[in-house]
């Protein structure tokens, strides 16, 4: 259904209506899934937290205040204070935009590079395609964290480098998905028709094949944001994230390990923030996958 929709010129009005119907149906199918809506709500909460972290929390929240060390949660400090006397709630809010930024930018890097590789590998089946896919297979052999860690060792610690490392380690999955999509699409009638009327390779790839492969990439992107946020948290936990005192959820947990016995809240609240954010994107991604799958949707 989607294939005919995307391959026709935008001027053909009945098909434009059909295109809107496809996405409207997807939206309706998504709204029918309670778990996807829970995921959307969680993502919404994290977005609000990120906005608050950007505009409402003063940067002084990262300054030590030893008089307020290890205060348990109270009305004055909803999530308590950490070993340096900093308010955990304010720092959780400060960490939200960083985690989201890493998730989104890393996935943007991985999906862009991976999709381009997948498009080329799927459409050029010869030596180039085989070389790209063997390279992808080799990258897929690495456990995700190890690959990100090795790239971090090359690039050094820091927020931008975390984004690049996590993005590059997400890339091979996008290559695989896009290559599989292209293989299934490249001999469809509308692609052959485009070729028959003289369309060039890049036109066929960008105008006819890419839009039809995008739904799979969209699903993988949503799911990959949660993996990227987890990977960022782990790298920050290991001390490879932004330099202290910048607040990231992973580094907050790492700071909290030394005071775990006396003040478990220092570890618990940033941990909950990571868990709920990852849960939100996972539920949304799962829902999106089911909503975009016409066979499941019609059941």
């Amino acid at each position, binding site marked *: 259904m989607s294939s005919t929709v995307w391959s026709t010129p935008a001027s053909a009005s009945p098909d434009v209506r059909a295109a809107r119907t496809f996405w409207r149906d997807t939206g309706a199918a998504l709204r029918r899934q309670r778990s996807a809506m829970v995921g959307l709500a969680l993502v919404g909460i994290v977005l609000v937290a990120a906005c608050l972290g950007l505009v409402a929390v003063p940067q002084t929240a990262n300054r030590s205040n030893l008089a307020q060390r290890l205060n348990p949660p109270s009305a004055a400090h909803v999530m308590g204070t950490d070993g340096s006397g900093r308010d955990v709630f304010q720092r959780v809010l400060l960490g939200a935009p960083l985690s989201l930024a890493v998730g989104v930018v890393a996935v943007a890097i991985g999906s862009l590079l991976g999709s381009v590789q997948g498009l080329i590998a799927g459409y050029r089946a010869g030596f180039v395609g085989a070389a790209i896919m*063997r390279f992808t*297979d*080799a*990258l897929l052999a690495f456990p995700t964290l*190890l690959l990100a860690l090795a790239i971090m*060792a090359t690039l050094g610690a820091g927020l931008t480098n975390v984004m690049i490392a996590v993005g590059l380690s997400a890339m091979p999955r996008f290559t695989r998905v896009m290559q599989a999509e292209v293989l299934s699409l490249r001999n469809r009638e509308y692609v052959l028709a485009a070729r028959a009327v003289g369309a060039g390779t890049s036109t066929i790839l960008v105008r006819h094949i890419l839009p039809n492969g995008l739904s799979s990439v969209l699903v993988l992107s949503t799911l990959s944001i949660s993996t990227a946020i987890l990977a960022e948290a782990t790298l920050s936990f290991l001390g490879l994230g932004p330099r202290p005192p910048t607040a990231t959820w*992973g580094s907050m*947990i790492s700071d909290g390990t030394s005071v775990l016995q006396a003040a478990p809240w220092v570890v*618990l609240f940033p941990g909950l923030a*990571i868990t709920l954010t990852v849960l939100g994107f996972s539920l949304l991604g799962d829902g999106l996958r089911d909503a975009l799958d016409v066979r499941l949707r019609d059941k």
Partner: protein
Amino acid sequence: MRLIGGRLVQAALTLVGALTIMFLILRLTPGDPVQIMLGDYRTPELEAALRARYGLDQPLPVQYLVYVGNILTGNFGVSYWRNQDVTTLVASVLPYTVQLAVAAIIVTCAIGLPLGVVAALNRNSFTDVAAMMIALLGIAAPGFLLALLLIYVLSYSLGWFPVAGAGEGTNLVNQLRSLVLPALALGFSSAALTARTTRAALLNVLNEDYLRTARAKGLRPLAILRSHALRNGLIPVLAVLGLQLGQLIGGAGVIEIVFNRPGVGKLLIDAILSRDYPLSEALLAVLLTSVIVINLVTDVLYGLVDPRLRVT
């Protein structure tokens, strides 16, 4: 046999590719291990001597050939930082990681399979929703968070298990007690994934005609589950378990660090960050080989237990 042969060649190519990529990532690192090693004591003479000693003055292709030779002979030389024979060093920590990975996969099966089966058999009930909520939380929570929460509750508060270490030099019971929390922390997210896969796989077969036939001829539900549903339903779970074992080996490092437990992962993270080439390369060779071999064995087993795949 053709299936196994094809998969073997593919696995060998993947391994060569993965090891080459890792060599390039490590060697193209901007930081210089010799400069890091010497720090403030750096002089051009000392730098040149160390570079010659470790073969770092050779062109990259020569270094690559030496690296390939090291892998083939299993002789990786001496660790830059620890000044110990790399092979001995790896051999001393490998058993701890193997223990942890095996214990974690036992946790994965012991929690994941029953959770998935119960959820599938009680589809859309409260039990199903509760089981899947536990699974989702297990997937979403980072392993190191779970590790810290387990330490807080079961070690600090209840005193049941040691906080750190692997019980080195103590009796077997202490070593096993030291293994419980790391295995739970490492295995829980895999258990959660396995539960979801088991539920989905079992739901797929529960509506098959042959199960209706089994019910119609009066077989008891447990017999139907054991002899018919699980035998077919668990085939996809096998593939997921194989992949999980690979991820467990990769994720073991962080858990080893939290529990201050010796192991390949912890040593590797230290080695990569200090640019200890011989040690990183040896550890990565061991890890990547085991991940690829596990995937190969899973692939082949998958073909053996599901005869339909042998034809395709």
